């Protein structure tokens, strides 16, 4: 495509009363007052919620904080197959596999860390898991914390929920 010049219409120069913005300010205050009065009269219509005391109900497919599932005996269901770190686009899952004390299980995660600061909450780990060991159905956002280390969730934290 050839490069050319296109003339764009400039905004019209404002007249003096318009440049004072007096009418517009009054109009704007009118909108504000309408909302204040409306909310005082009908409080159930307020859109904001008082987080974290009140939490929004998340839709069922919302991808929130991860949790690791447990077996009936309380051991992690995860078999450390490395499918989730392989699928993870953010490379935020670190697994160290080991020989399980339960011979029927064989392989289990000695370490299972998720770096919540790296996670992009895409849910591919959940998709990849062959044993339904990892889920993102807690309905929780990752709570904030004051150091980076605390936001690398270990297997203990992930098994809690």
């Amino acid at each position: 495509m050839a490069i050319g010049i296109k003339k764009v219409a400039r905004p019209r120069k404002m007249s003096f009363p318009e440049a004072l913005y007096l009418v517009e300010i009054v109009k704007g205050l009118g909108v504000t007052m309408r909302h204040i009065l409306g909310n005082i009269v009908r409080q159930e219509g307020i859109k904001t919620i008082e987080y974290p005391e009140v939490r929004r109900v998340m839709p069922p497919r919302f991808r929130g904080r991860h949790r690791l599932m447990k077996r009936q005996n309380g051991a992690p269901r995860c078999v450390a197959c490395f499918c989730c770190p392989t699928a993870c686009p953010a490379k935020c899952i670190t697994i160290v596999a080991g020989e399980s004390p339960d011979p029927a299980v064989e392989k289990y995660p000695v370490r299972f860390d998720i770096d919540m600061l790296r996670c992009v909450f895409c849910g591919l780990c959940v998709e990849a898991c062959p044993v339904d060991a990892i889920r993102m159905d807690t309905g929780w956002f990752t709570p904030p914390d004051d150091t980076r280390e605390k936001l690398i969730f270990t297997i203990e934290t992930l098994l809690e929920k």
Partner: protein
Amino acid sequence: MPNLTIDGLAVGVPEGTTILAAAKQVGIHIPHYCYHTHLSIAGNCRMCLVEVEKFPKLQTACSTVVTEGMVVRTDTEKVRKAVTGVLEFLLIHHPIDCPICDQAGECGLQDYYMVYGLHRSRYALEDKVHKKKVQDIGGQIVLDAERCILCSRCVRFLDEVTGTRELNFFQRGDHSEISIFPGRPLDNNYTGNLADICPVGALTSKDFRFKCRVWLLKGVESICTGCARGCNIAAHFKGDILYRYKPRVNDAVNRAWMCDFGRLEYKKANDARLLAPFVREGGREKSASWGAIVPQVALELSRAVEREGADAVAVIASPQSSNEELYLVRRIAADRLGTKNLAFTHRTPGDGFSDDLLVLADKNPNSRGAKLLGIPDGEAFDALIGKIAAGRIRALLLFGNVLGAFTEGETAGLLSKVPFIAQVGTNTGPVSKAAHAVLPSASFAERGGTFTNHAGRVQRFHAGFPPRGKAKNVIELLCDLANGLGADWTFTGERSVFRALSETETPFRGMTYESVGAFGQEAAR
């Protein structure tokens, strides 16, 4: 020389070639489990069935020898249906525990299922025959009888290669399984190969067990540094950590095998590494920068030459170094320091064990190369140690992590007689505890070059990843040192050194990295 056509492609092969081998020559892959290039033909997995014109039934490609005018089809519906059927039978009792199986990712069952299977099991899960899982059968091997497809590769390997015959088939029908004889575990030096040749996850490595998933590993062509045989290997690593070795096929050296000792050699590049240069002043380690430590070593060496003469300076080379590095070491000793005190020793602590298959008594990859490059062994080394013991060596440039076969105490005693020792090495050990300047060097997985094996075969090894920590490539380090001693070397990388070496050194004359290739080249005698 029979001529035949496979899937319409004409191919001429020598008398006695099988259809499977002939197909490989024209790039047609015929699925197989029991066939192995370096074992006898068993023909029991039935995966390699092909249609041959004028034969009423399908033939096993691995055991059918080609004849003149044969017409083979591997891509017909009949073949596909048969192979799919065979695979369904092989998978009938399979536990499908891929998530916890170390073979997953390089498993023959997974690979062929994606091509020929993709079926749902017609066999109820609760009807599957269960066998014993996680059996430690000795050596480096864990046996999972449930995953086995009874291809008999392991049985043939132990029969034909090691001759120890520890594994065999037991039971009949559905209950057939491989196992050791009661109370007689695997007892040979080549058990690790069983994990390599097992096409499924029945025999897996104890050492590699659960360490890493194979699809996360990268491989680099390398040479085992465990002994003078120079087995061709692929070194598998993730990031800068080595995880395992797999033998590469080289019929002139190791065929398709490697020993169990060599298989664990990778650990030396992971553990107890020297990662940053340091100097020892008054018995205390003080970290140093590369910019300061190399000129300091050069200064100490040249000062000793000036004050006490060239005979007061010595260089001990290492047969763990590559040909390129040894060539530069010799040139530094001869041209820069002007000393005749240059020697190496093939002796190492605990060496001497050998067997009649691959393991050699000399536990260094490049003793032969050092000799061919004119660095003396044996008496010259003993004479040099005599001089050190007599306190006549005032400055020593020492390569390697150990001093011959001396114990830690003996090494410390000998080295305490030298006022200045500079070590170029990869691992902490008796030498790094005594040296006054420690220059950490790249391991065999972090640098490239060539080794000359016991038979004089020059073989290349390649760098997998950059040197760990602050370790430096030895060639780079030696160039800096030589230039600090007044040379003007401009070598960049091992290739340029090899070019210089092949011009002047008679045994290597005319060699290039291209002529060495993937399988090595014999040095002139």
